[in-house]
């Protein structure tokens, strides 16, 4: 613990950092989903479709999940971070999510953005106003 606090790594220079994109998705399900459920769904589906090697290349991270109150179906929106070169592969993973604990779920991509701020402005807040 002490070692981690003292020896904190310096952030990589911008030219050496991984280039990232943010994918905004919408999910509908028969049961409410928490952030941990979304993580397990997306990582599980990516593993099934591309295997461990392909999933590791994507560098997936679920940034944030919002639950939207809806009467008929439980719907939610969220943001996933992914390496820029693998964003099409991540987009292919999204429609392969079909079941969660014996209940039906379905995910759609709303859009892709370069920053979290613009992802929220373009696809999350804008859609709430609809």
């Amino acid at each position, binding site marked *: 613990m002490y070692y981690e606090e003292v020896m904190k790594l310096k952030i990589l220079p911008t030219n050496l950092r991984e280039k990232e994109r943010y994918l905004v998705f919408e999910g*509908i399900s028969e049961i409410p989903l928490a952030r941990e459920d979304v993580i397990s769904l997306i990582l599980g589906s990516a593993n*099934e*479709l591309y295997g461990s090697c392909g999933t590791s290349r994507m560098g997936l991270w679920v940034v944030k999940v919002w639950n939207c109150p809806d009467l008929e*179906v439980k719907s939610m929106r969220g943001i996933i971070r992914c390496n820029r070169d693998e964003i*099409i*592969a991540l*987009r*292919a993973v*999204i*429609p*392969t999510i*079909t079941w969660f604990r014996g209940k*039906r*779920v*379905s995910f*759609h*991509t709303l859009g892709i953005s370069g920053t979290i701020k613009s992802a929220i402005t373009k696809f999350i807040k804008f859609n709430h106003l609809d």
Partner: protein
Amino acid sequence: MFFDFHIHRDHKLALEALKLGYHGVVLVSHSEELEKHHNLLKSTVDYKQHVKNASGLFILKGVEIKAKNPEDLKRKIQKFRKKTDVLLVQGGNLKINRAATEDPRVDILCYPYRSRAESGINHVLAAEAAKNRVSIEINLKYLLMNRPNQRHRVLSQFRQIVKLHRKFKFPVIITSDANSIYDLRSPRDVVALAACFGMTSEEVTRAMCTVPQEIMERGSLRDQIIVSGACLVKNESIK
């Protein structure tokens, strides 16, 4: 303009498809259901008006024929062809696949690869499908709802169809075969998913836009065609 030509008969699905970015859908009823309940096609027309008034979505009615043998298939095609806009045939059996690709009255051959190890299409059927413009369906539900350990088999079947499509130029159509809102997928997600079985974005766009439009166009001309090569032309169009 994206189309989904295989959605089960439910107006909620049509509205959900519109939300996802589709411009037109075919609401499909099964031939067995229609033989039991004769007014089902009429109710599809009611849906059509109800949804079209609400949204402007293009809705067609379709019949999916399930036949026991080629003779049964011919009898059912004869029965349903004039009653419906789009005629689909449930494949899987090699004899049915062959009979469906040889018949120009069939619009779509649905899952010829069902319960098979290979794609159910060979060079002979591919040439027949190209000649008679019978579209071969790539069914997303078959891919997504299959067990994960069987998915590799479905992907290789799709890849085989794509390979034959590039060689013989028969039409390929991508559909969702949706029973519920959980089965629908947005068109741009489908484009990304199709890369898994080797389709380029141009090929997917053709499978979801151009091929459905061709089927609709052919359907509108079908009443005017007397025999192959002869067409009935109305007086107004001559002037």
